[in-house]
């Protein structure tokens, strides 16, 4: 009987550790799996038989897939930073749509032109109580690119990507620098015209 008590104590301790770790893992696996499946689904669409179709023809489908995990409104608002308040509501919507299209059009073209990259997703790293980072690698033509997705647990939306880092370069910070530079000498109207111009030329 005496020998059994330490064993029971040890068993209780082990069970408690296992239960708690599995609870944490289950919780973090969900956003990781969702992100992984979103990216794979996007690649399927980009490499489908109609892959040579222009971005406009697949826009709704691409945005529909990405919207499940990417909060573009949050991404653009964060990228504009303090400049966001310079825009009225109509301009905010307009700039959000134009920037989203500009970025997606460029990356869609890049991703669908070559072979399908081989993706690997690492386990999420906790940044804070409501933020995680999922590191991944994409191997394309033998070249490895490190991509990190930063996700926040947003009320009413769940885990959503709010920034993407390519080789450690934050897209949100990079755009924020560009917007800051733009608004030092130019207006919101200039920005909208510039974005439309770039989209037409692409």
């Amino acid at each position, binding site marked *: 009987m005496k020998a059994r008590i330490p064993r029971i104590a040890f068993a209780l301790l082990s069970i408690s550790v296992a239960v708690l770790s599995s609870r944490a893992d289950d919780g973090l696996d969900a956003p990781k799996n969702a992100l992984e499946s979103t990216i794979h689904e996007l690649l399927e669409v980009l490499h489908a038989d109609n892959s040579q179709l222009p971005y406009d023809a697949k826009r709704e489908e691409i945005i529909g897939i990405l919207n499940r995990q990417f909060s573009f409104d949050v991404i653009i608002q964060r990228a504009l930073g303090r400049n966001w308040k310079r825009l009225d509501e109509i301009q905010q919507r307009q700039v959000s749509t134009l920037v989203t299209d500009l970025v997606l059009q460029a990356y869609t073209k890049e991703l669908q032109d070559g072979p399908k990259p081989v993706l690997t997703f690492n386990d999420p790293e906790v940044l804070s109580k409501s933020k995680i980072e999922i590191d991944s690698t994409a191997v394309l033509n033998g070249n490895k690119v490190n991509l990190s997705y930063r996700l926040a647990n947003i009320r009413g939306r769940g885990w959503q990507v709010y920034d993407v880092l390519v080789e450690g370069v934050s897209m949100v910070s*990079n755009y*924020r620098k560009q917007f800051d530079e733009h608004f030092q000498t130019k207006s919101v109207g200039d920005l909208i015209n510039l974005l439309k111009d770039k989209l037409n030329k692409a």
Partner: protein
Amino acid sequence: MKSLMQLALGSLLLLSPLALGDDLIELDDLLDIDDLSDDASSSSGSAGIADPFEGINRAIFGFNDFTYKEIFEPFSKGFVKVVPNPARKGIGNFFNNLSFPTRFAGNLLQFRFGRASQETGKFLVNTTAGFAGFMNVAPEFDGLNPPAEDIGQAFASWGIDHGFYIVVPFTGPSSLRDLVGRFGGRAVDPIPEPWTQVDGSGTRLALQVTVIVNDLPEIIDVYNSITEPAIDPYAAVRDGYAQLRAARVAE
């Protein structure tokens, strides 16, 4: 024995999510969209780099942009058609293996002796099992894939700042610190002067041109992926450079 049971029960309590605090993520801890946006407005953003010569830099950037798009890109497209990807990869691996002394010196100057020995191991494995470096087989072995270090990163680890941003004709973004580091790297590079192991200036030049031409398709791809979706391509490249260097130094 009672104390053992108490220890187990106590451990259970200690391991509860409340007691774990920040270590265990609280999945019901939700953020409002405004919290995320405020966080962005208040933060200073990415690693900065001073740009007191922005006017001159923008002019050189314009020249480089024209050269990349009108000369290098069409040439690079032709080169890709003539030289297939595996051959380009092999040539790239060969020259990358030859630049081992620069990475080794970068590690030593940062007192990263472990990584310096990993670089040495990588060089030896790739030179032998990788057929003179044409194949990069080292990553197949544990601990033989250290991140690439250079002299500029070593200067940064000593606390030396970028100084200021410089756009170099043809080669693009750099900084005073990294440019000095690049010249320092040449001192241990086996191809260029002063430590050259190659006889004949013509051969040296041919090898250096081969390195640039072979890397060109990749450089053009990266350049386009940054500048095409950019609002201000100059600012995008400058910030991308500053962030990339900061990430490499932190690595």
